[in-house]
């Protein structure tokens, strides 16, 4: 079923994975690897799998580092859904105060090229087909068609 703008409605997607994980890097690796294995099992092509995998890595890293301030007593939720033709929906939610993604600077500007941070959300937007942050900014939903 397609929405008015030609995009799939969320109801077309069925849940594949639903993780609640502690806010640390080791948990990120475990969740990303589990998603990669599921995408492989779904016969998702390698290029698309790597793009989703990296986008999830970045979304979880933002949730852990910024949303949870690297406090492993806090929990991050990551859900993955897919539809019958291989489209993927990923949602990552953290308990933090959220942020305004539109205020992020462009990491490709000359003055910031050598910065060691600030590329995560930009990468997600480049890798995924559609990205939406909730109004509060503590949940990202991203689609790969």
């Amino acid at each position, binding site marked *: 079923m397609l929405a008015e703008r030609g995009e799939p409605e969320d109801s077309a997607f069925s849940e594949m994975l639903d993780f609640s994980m502690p806010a640390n890097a*080791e948990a990120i690796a475990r969740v*990303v690897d589990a998603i990669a294995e599921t995408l492989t099992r779904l016969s998702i092509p390698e290029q698309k799998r790597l793009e989703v995998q990296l986008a999830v890595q970045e979304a979880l890293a933002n949730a852990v580092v910024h949303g949870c301030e690297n406090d492993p007593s806090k929990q991050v939720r990551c859900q993955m859904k897919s539809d019958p033709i291989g489209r993927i929906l990923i949602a990552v939610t953290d308990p933090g105060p959220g942020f305004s993604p539109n205020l992020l600077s462009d990491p*490709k500007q000359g003055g910031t090229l050598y910065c060691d941070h600030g590329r995560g959300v930009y990468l997600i937007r480049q890798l995924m087909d559609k990205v939406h942050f909730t109004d509060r900014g503590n949940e990202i939903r991203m689609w790969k068609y």
Partner: protein
Amino acid sequence: MDINVRQRAQVQLIQLRGQLRLGPPVDELRQTVEDAIANGDNRFVINLADVPMIDSSGIGLLVRFLASTKQRGGSLKLTQPSKFAVQTLRLVGVLNLFEVFDDDDEAVKSFA
């Protein structure tokens, strides 16, 4: 991530295996390169043939060490990056900051 370091003609040749991403992989590579820089090394070649994915923290580390080695008169060069690593570095606009080689020998010789 496996990190193997060899010295060849006053160049630190670092072979990585695994995903270069937030957490132990990035922390261990940071420590390895910082230790070498503290010992006076400023010429590095990093082989990325077995690195299928680099995340933004890995990219940040590579560009930071590129800048710090250049400030010390050296450089950090990349060899055999995977197709997706090249795409990722290009996406964020940093691929052209690096010298990229097809093999380690060629990269080591380029320092001469």
